[in-house]
């Protein structure tokens, strides 16, 4: 074995193995969403439903940084979603009607709240981490219910009207659902590009390393506590922005989203979509969750029972979710195509006719 010192030697330029900023699945998703106002109504869907789907996609993508990438199960994430919704409402009602500034405040509030919680729980993982997120989520929910002078208590904040979006000389009203839909799709596009870069960045790889082997990550020299804290805060900021968007869309902010089952929805949506194995899991999961809620909700008041059963079935029979099933199917077909190509090549070497010709089907 010829030895070279790796510190002073590097292989001849192997070329970049990096990821593109914008990928094909990203483009397909954005094109499908961008054309939704044209094809959605034809299949029985409507613009406002699209708005909620996209908001939950952003929420799920941020949440999946924690669950899927870092392996930290947060069952109290609704707290940061709710904090974002209230921050948006309070900023709109008391500071400025600018949707962008109100959204910025929602993201900051969500990130700040998560950062505070993260200080207490970032040294934990597994069941202890999960339990502490539930406990912290309940604290936020309780405060939102009781601090009536600020949050409006059970009634929530009302009259958070959709405002006019102004970027320089460009003004656009978000009153119309279609306009709001395009606004949230634009935010989703920004979120997709940013998060795609993040998960392939040194920070994103450190998150995955911590999920796989926290001890090794420490011994390789990563600051595990700070990394976990930072991802919790970032994920909280995404939840805050999503909560702010929902407050804008619903023109109100309620404590309901901060409850335990409110927090559970994002966990179920992310897992059903396949967030544990794919970047796209939360996107698929948000679509399935909101559409299932809408379609099942029109059929029965007990839609959540059926959705819960679907969740149990997925956990039992396809724990890697819809994205996992897609990956397995793609792998199966690739292997079959490869085998068939190998068979044809071998037949060619032996001088045999292709199978179709032997069968007389050609």
């Amino acid at each position, binding site marked *: *074995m010829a*030895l*070279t*010192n*790796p*510190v002073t*030697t*590097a*292989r*001849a*330029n*192997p*070329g*970049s*193995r*990096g*990821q593109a900023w914008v990928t094909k699945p990203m483009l397909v998703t954005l094109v499908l969403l961008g054309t939704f106002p044209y094809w959605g109504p034809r299949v029985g869907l409507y613009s406002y439903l699209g708005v909620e789907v996209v908001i939950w996609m952003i929420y799920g993508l941020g949440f999946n940084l924690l669950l899927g990438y870092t392996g930290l199960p947060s069952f109290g994430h609704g707290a940061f979603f709710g904090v974002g919704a209230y921050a948006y409402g309070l900023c709109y009602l008391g500071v400025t009607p600018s949707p962008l500034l109100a959204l910025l405040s929602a993201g900051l509030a969500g990130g700040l709240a998560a950062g505070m919680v993260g200080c207490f729980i970032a040294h934990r993982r597994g069941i202890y981490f999960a339990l502490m997120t539930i406990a912290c989520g309940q604290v936020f929910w309780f405060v939102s219910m009781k601090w009536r002078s600020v949050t409006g208590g059970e009634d929530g904040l009302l009259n958070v009207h959709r405002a006019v979006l102004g970027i320089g000389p460009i003004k656009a009203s978000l009153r119309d659902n279609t306009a709001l839909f395009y606004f949230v799709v634009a935010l989703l596009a920004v979120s997709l590009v*940013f998060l795609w*870069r*993040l998960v*392939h*960045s*040194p*920070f*994103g*790889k*450190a998150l*995955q*390393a911590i999920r*796989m*082997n926290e*001890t*090794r*990550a*420490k*011994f*390789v*020299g*990563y*600051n*595990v506590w700070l*990394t976990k804290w*930072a991802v919790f805060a970032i994920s909280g900021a995404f939840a805050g922005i999503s909560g702010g968007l929902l407050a804008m869309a619903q023109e109100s902010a309620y404590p309901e989203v901060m409850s335990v089952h409110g927090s559970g929805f994002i966990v179920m949506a992310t897992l059903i979509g396949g967030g544990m194995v794919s970047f796209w899991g939360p996107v698929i999961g948000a679509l399935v969750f909101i559409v299932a809620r809408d379609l099942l909700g029109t059929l029965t008041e007990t839609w959540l029972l059926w959705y819960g059963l679907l969740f149990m079935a997925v956990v039992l029979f396809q724990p890697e979710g819809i994205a996992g099933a897609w990956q397995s199917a793609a792998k199966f077909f690739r292997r079959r195509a490869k085998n068939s190509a190998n068979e044809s090549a071998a037949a060619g070497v032996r001088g045999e006719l292709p199978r179709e010709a032997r069968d007389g089907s050609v």
Partner: protein
Amino acid sequence: MALFEAHHLSKRFGDRIVLEDITLQFERGQLSGIMGPNGAGKSTCFNVLTGHFPPDRGKVILDGEDITGLSPRQIAQKGIARSFQTINLFDEFTALENVLLALPRVRSLGFNMIRDVAGDPSTVARALAVLEQVGLGARADLRASSLSYGDRRALEIAVALAAHPRVLFLDEPTQGMGADGRNRLRELISQLKLYFTIVMIEHDMEFLFSLADKVSVIHWGQVIAQGTPEELQRDSWVRRSTLGVSQHA
């Protein structure tokens, strides 16, 4: 002065004393071995030296700097890398990604959220060179979990090498390996000796004695002997306590 020194280290877990007044010195550019029977305290000694546990008493000195009680992360950043007795890798990452993450240049970008880890050809080239060093160049794109046992051992060493360590700690690198694997590993470590200061715990005496410049014997949590492999082989006390040689032999 030795590159790495441990002075009067003691460690207890509850009422059990695991290390008692251990003093060790590892010279620059040498391969120093640590041996001893099961339960002698070798791995605890490694864990204390590499920051996994703080010592109850004593000091750990790296190149004149007191690093006692620093966290594993801080110790890794000082230039100490280690492998583990049970293989400790990022299993879902490829071999290349495992090494990339351990490169100081990638580690120093720890909170960069935009730059692509695999997007810099020179960084990838460096990681591939490390993999080639341990004979895994052709398997760079395979998942760590899909590698053979011997290759996983080699990858552990590659991850440790990627940090360009000032001291490389290897904890029983031959554990679970067959004769062929041991021979390949012997060849690899004998080459690494040319570039790195290495400290190795090893049960396989023949393997350790064939590579080490100096060996320390730990028994009952204490250093009972130190010397070259030849000196230790002649020491009847060492032979009885660690090699299983009877008193009448």
